[in-house]
């Protein structure tokens, strides 16, 4: 199916005779990581795009939609190179992508050199992309790493009653940003962070950190992901300790929950938060999951759409709605198209999404809790939904700016608690 789709696109790109079209096609460039750690996620992102394009029959206002895929390897240099190729060589009208945080920041700056083209973020979740010196032609229709922490802090304080915590998180931009989102919420709700540990990405040995973890806390926040998360849990279990955990957005995703060994069982009851919830009962989400499962045979997809499929899907939906609003007209430096995108109120599988003045999404965030099915497998049970989460988590802009940029020492918990 997908191969046929791509072949069709190629046939069009090569100018082979196809069905007569009324007008010149609209060319969409897709920046997506197909190499490196996020390759599987990137493939799922393409599925999300295909589903959105198929829903309009690859056509808007009588103009056919063509896609050109530019694979990246999550390095920002590659992303910029591929963006340049898409615009200068493949002559695309606008770009959907990229996938990872540092790529997004690089593309934001590249977008400034191409004011007459439009860039719609794929799935990259860095705060800086839309918060620091944003590009007027760069749009992000999904929530980012800092927003994904929203709701979790309040949930653990109010519902779980955990007020004193220590944190262990990955020492890179996403780790800092995702932690900061949680911490703002947690400290404002009256929580206290007694100790922060930062571990390098891909570290194998957590012994030193585990030995230093304080015992007199209610829970430990874990901002790790993938193999780092599995390694930590294994070593923590071997150390013979037992503690409540709070998970960052990638702490309890499918890779960790489906890992082998008993370590993952330590996660049962761990609350996490993020852009999506697998078990979201919202009919729009359920319909999206059903369509995803029907469109791709088992084995060629994940059990349910990942954040990458969802984010790329929403981004493509936004592009299609924007095109509809201007009737496929991309002339005049795409100003009308960009203005239409900025005004959109999008009904997505996640709920209503609109943009703020930095062209960053204001949308829902979900709090989940790891639970066990009768057959022993683990899943994320949705426990809370927070709507209209803004980039500043509801803080006034000046106050949010005063907190500082994500880093090892931000935010200052005591100051937030005093408010």
């Amino acid at each position: 199916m997908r191969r046929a789709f791509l072949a069709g696109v190629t046939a069009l790109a090569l100018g082979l005779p196809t069905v007569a079209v009324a007008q010149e096609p609209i060319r969409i460039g897709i920046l997506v990581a197909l190499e490196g750690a996020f390759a599987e996620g990137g493939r799922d992102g393409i599925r999300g795009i295909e589903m959105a394009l198929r829903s309009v029959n690859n056509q808007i206002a009588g103009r056919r939609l063509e896609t050109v895929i530019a694979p990246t390897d999550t390095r920002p240099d590659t992303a910029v190179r591929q963006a340049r190729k898409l615009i200068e060589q493949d002559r695309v009208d606008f770009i959907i992508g990229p996938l990872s945080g540092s790529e997004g920041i690089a593309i934001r700056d590249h977008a400034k050199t191409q004011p007459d083209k439009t860039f719609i973020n794929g799935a990259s979740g860095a705060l800086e992309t839309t918060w620091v010196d944003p590009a007027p032609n760069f749009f992000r229709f999904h929530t980012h790493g800092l927003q994904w922490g929203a709701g979790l802090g309040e949930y653990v304080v109010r519902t779980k009653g955990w007020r004193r915590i220590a944190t262990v998180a990955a020492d890179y931009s996403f780790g800092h940003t995702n932690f900061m989102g949680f911490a703002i919420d947690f400290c404002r709700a009256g929580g206290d962070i007694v100790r922060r540990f930062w571990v390098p990405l891909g570290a194998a040995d957590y012994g030193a950190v585990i030995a230093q973890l304080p015992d007199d806390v209610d829970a430990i926040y874990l901002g790790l992901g993938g193999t780092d998360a599995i390694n930590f849990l294994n070593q923590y279990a071997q150390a013979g300790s037992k503690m409540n955990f709070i998970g960052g957005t990638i702490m309890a995703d499918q890779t960790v929950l489906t890992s082998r060994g008993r370590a993952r069982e330590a996660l049962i009851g761990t609350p996490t938060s993020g852009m999506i919830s697998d078990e979201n009962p919202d009919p729009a989400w359920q319909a999206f999951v059903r369509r995803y499962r029907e469109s791709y045979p088992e084995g060629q997809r994940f059990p349910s759409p990942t954040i990458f499929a969802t984010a790329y899907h929403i981004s493509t939906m936004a592009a299609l709605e924007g095109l509809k609003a201007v009737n496929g007209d991309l002339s005049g430096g795409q100003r009308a198209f960009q203005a239409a995108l900025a005004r959109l109120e999008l009904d997505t599988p996640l709920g209503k999404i609109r943009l703020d003045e930095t062209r960053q999404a204001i949308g829902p965030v979900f709090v989940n809790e790891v639970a066990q099915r009768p057959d022993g497998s683990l899943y994320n049970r949705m426990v809370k939904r927070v709507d209209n989460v803004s980039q500043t988590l509801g803080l006034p802009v000046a106050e949010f700016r005063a907190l500082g940029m994500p880093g090892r020492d931000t935010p200052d918990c005591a100051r937030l608690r005093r408010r």
Partner: protein
Amino acid sequence: MAVAARTRSTLAATGRAAADPGIEAPWFARIPTGVWLVGAVLLTMPAYANNFVLFQVFGWSFILGIIALSLMFLAGYGGMVSLIQMTVAGLAGYMVAILGPSGTEQISLGLSWWIYLPVALAVATLFGTLVGTLAVRTEGIYTIMITLAIASAFFYFTRQNYTIFNGYNGFTLVRPPDLFGVDWRQPVPFYYLSLACAALCYAAVVYVARAPFGLALQGIRDNARRMAALGYNVTAHRILAYGFASVLAAVGGVLLVWQNGQIAPGTAGIPAVIDILVIAVVGGLRRPIGPFIGALIYVVLSSFAPDILTAFGLEPDRFKLIVGLGFLAAVFFSPDGVLGLWDRWQARRARRPDPLTGKVP
């Protein structure tokens, strides 16, 4: 590594043009026609190539070619396969971003170009020379190991260090200075800038290879003990070779950060380090033109591999496969790179019997 052994050709192979006796013709008349032709095509390129080809394909080829040239100089003339060259380039790029203006204002000092440019080149050269000082005490595979170890250490250091290198995010919005009222990041000016730098570096390597220092270096490559017996300071020559190669790599690094407009740890990560080795090996380590040929092949393959795949109805996910297969094919059919293929074709033609006399020359 086999590469180093195979490059141990005789002195005569590299000094061929210089060995041509003949009466003193003016220097420009001694330049072969092919060089004039290539030069003319390259100089007039903006007339018939689009911006993408100028900036991305050729601009990037020249930059990678310069960095690979520094490896070719060490490996081809010095017999030392150093994997530190990309790191030296990366450090020069980082220095430009840290000392000059960039989007990361809390770290970048924003000095003017006439300060940051020489300092960046000097720091990178010093670093490369220091690594060389360590590495020259080793041979063969150990040189590769120690340089690779330092290259990985640099990568992880830049990724973890936020106070100087800004960790994972690196630096964005690094732009070349507006000298002489020209925006050097526009495709045509950048094309000529990188072309000029590449030509200068190429000429420098050609010159140094024939200068007494270069000849002594090649002597050391072929028989270090004999050169030592003749009174040459082997270690000093090797360290100096690292120093010279580091200057080249640093120039490439400065151009690279200007072209990308940003630098991050991945710029000098392990895959990038290996890419430089691949480029030098595919092009050929025997002559300084090799790295540029290798770089052009690498850039064309990595830019258009997804299109090739989709044209055959395959998914573009496997674009690295094409690059890898190209590399395998090059190494399999010609261990001394594309240049080796050309040399062998020339040699076969020369051996063909004369059609008139039937004699084999």
